[in-house]
C-alpha cells in the first residue's frame, strides 16, 4: 500500500506547494558535477564519539520549571492541555 505524502502534510502547513524559486536551486544541484558520488560525510563535519558527555539526568531548576509552565499555551491545574488525539 503506498500513500503519497504531499509537502503540505509533511510540513503541517495548509495549502503549501513547492516554490518555483526553491526549485531553481534544486535544479542547480541536480545538474552539478559530483566527482566522487558516494563520498559524502567524509568526517569533515562529524562529532567524535570518543568524547561524549555523561548520560545522566540533570534536574531543571524550580525557576526553569515555573517558566516552562508559564509558556503552556493552555493550562489547567498546573497541567498542559492538549488537543484531543484522533485515531485514523
Amino acid at each position, binding site marked *: 500500500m503506498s500513500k503519497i*505524502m504531499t*509537502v*503540505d502534510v*509533511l*510540513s*503541517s*502547513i*495548509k*495549502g*503549501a*506547494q*513547492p*516554490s518555483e*524559486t*526553491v526549485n*531553481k*536551486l*534544486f535544479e*542547480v*544541484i*541536480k545538474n*552539478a558535477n*559530483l*566527482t*566522487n*558520488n*558516494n*563520498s*559524502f*560525510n*567524509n568526517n*569533515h*563535519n562529524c*562529532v567524535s564519539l570518543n568524547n*561524549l*558527555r*555523561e548520560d545522566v539526568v540533570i534536574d*531543571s531548576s524550580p*525557576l*526553569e520549571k515555573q*517558566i*516552562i509552565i*508559564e*509558556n*503552556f*499555551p*493552555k493550562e489547567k491545574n498546573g497541567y*498542559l492541555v*492538549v*488537543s*484531543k*488525539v*484522533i485515531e485514523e
Partner: protein
Amino acid sequence: MDSQIQTIHQQLVDKEITCTALVQSKLDALKQNTNNTVNALLGEKALELAAKVDAKIANGESIGLLEGIPFGIKDVYMVQGTITTASSNLLKNYKSAYTATAIQKLLDAGAIPLVKENCDSFGHGSSSENTIFGAVKNANNPDLVGGGSSGGSAVNVAKDYTVFSIGGDTGGSIRQPAGYNNVYGLKPTYGRISRYGLMAYASSTDCVGPIAKSLEDIRIVLNAMSGKDVKDQTTYASAEIDKDAISTSEDIKTIGYFKNFIESEAIDAEVKADFLATIEKIKAKGIEVKALDFFESNTLVSTYYTLAMAETASNLSRLDGTNYGSRIEAENLKETYSVTRSENFSEETKRRIVGGNQVLSQGFSDEIYLKSLGLRDQISENFEKDFNEVDIILSPVTPSTPPKIGDSLKDPLAMYLSDAYTVGFSLGQLPTLTVPQGTSTGLQITAAKNNDELVLKFANFLKDTI
C-alpha cells in the same frame, strides 16, 4: 577605532562616568531609535546590574574588563526570564526558561545586556525584513536594508546604541550585516562557541559571534564566549587569543582570492575595482597573492540552501503550538498543528520548511539532499587544498551594495544569490571576519579551521595597510 571596551572600562575605573548613567543613555538611545532595531528592552534588569557595578567601584573594589559594558543580543538567544521571539508570530510571547551558554559567559564576566535585537525570523533572510517588528533600517541610509539576519545587532553597534552585540551566523548572518553597516563581525570556527540556547536554524553551520566597532573588542568578546561546553557536543576547547599574538603578521606570507568571485558578472563594478586595488596594496607589502579556483556561485548558494532548508525543516518541526508558542485551536490535533503553523510562520519561513521537506522526501533525497552533502564535502576538500597553498583567503562580503527596503521580499532568488560570497565559508565551517575596509561593504578574511587567531592577525595587518 580603538577598543571601546577598554576606553569605557578605564572611564568607569577613573570614575569619569557612572555605569548607571552609561546604561541609561544607551537605553534612551535605543528607545528613541527609528531604525527598528529593538524587539525588547531589558531596562530594569540592566539598571539593577549597573547599580551593582557602581557600588563596587564606590567601595574601591576592582572590576573586570567586561564588567558594566552594555551589549545587545540578537533575539534568537535564550536569556532566562526574557521574551525570546525569533522575530516571529509563533514565539511572540515565549519566555526563555534558561540562558544560552555564550550569553551566560558574558553575564558571568559582568557585561550588561540591554536589548533583544530585531532580525529575520528564525534567521531566515538576508535583509532583516522578514520580521514582525518592522524592517531594520541601515545605519548609514534608512532607505536601505540593515542586512541580515543579524540586522538589528549590526545597526545597534554602528549607531553606538550597544558597545558590542551578539549575532548568529548560519550562512553569512553576522558578516553581511556587518559589511552593510561598516562594522566588524566575526563568524568563528564552527564549534568554538557553544550553540546551547541559540534557536537552531541549520545546526551544522549555526555559529555564535560578536559584532563590534574595533578588532580589539571582537578579540575580547570572542575570548569571553569561547570554550568547550558539555551542553553542545560540537564544541571544542580553544586557547585564548592573546593581544600581542595578533600584533605582528610576519608569518603571513601568502594570501589567495577566488578568481570567479571577482570575474563574476554579478559583482558591482565599484566593489570589484576596490577589491582589486586592495589586492595591489597587499602585494606592495611583499605578500604573495594567488588567484584560486573555486565553485560557481550558483553551486555554493544552492548547496547551502538545500542543506539549510533540510535542517530548518527538521529543527522547526517542534514548533507546533503544543508545549509553547501561539497555539491556534482547531477541531483536532493535526488541524491544530497545521493551523498554528500556517498562520504563525512567515512566507519565507514556510518556503524554507517546504523546500526542506521536499528534499528530505523519498525520490528527492538521493538526487538533491545527499548530492548536496557530497558537494559540501568537495567544497571542504577544496578549502583544505587551498590552505596548503595560502595562509589567508580574502573576499568581498557581498557582490553589491545594500538593496532598498522592499526589494528583497519581492525577489527571494536575488536575495539567496546575494549570499554567494558568505555561504561557502559556512559550509566549510571556517573562521571568517568581516572588516569595514577595502570595499563599500567590507572584506572577508578567512583562515583554515580553528585558526581564528590568524584571521585576527591579518585583520590587524590590514588595519594599517589599507
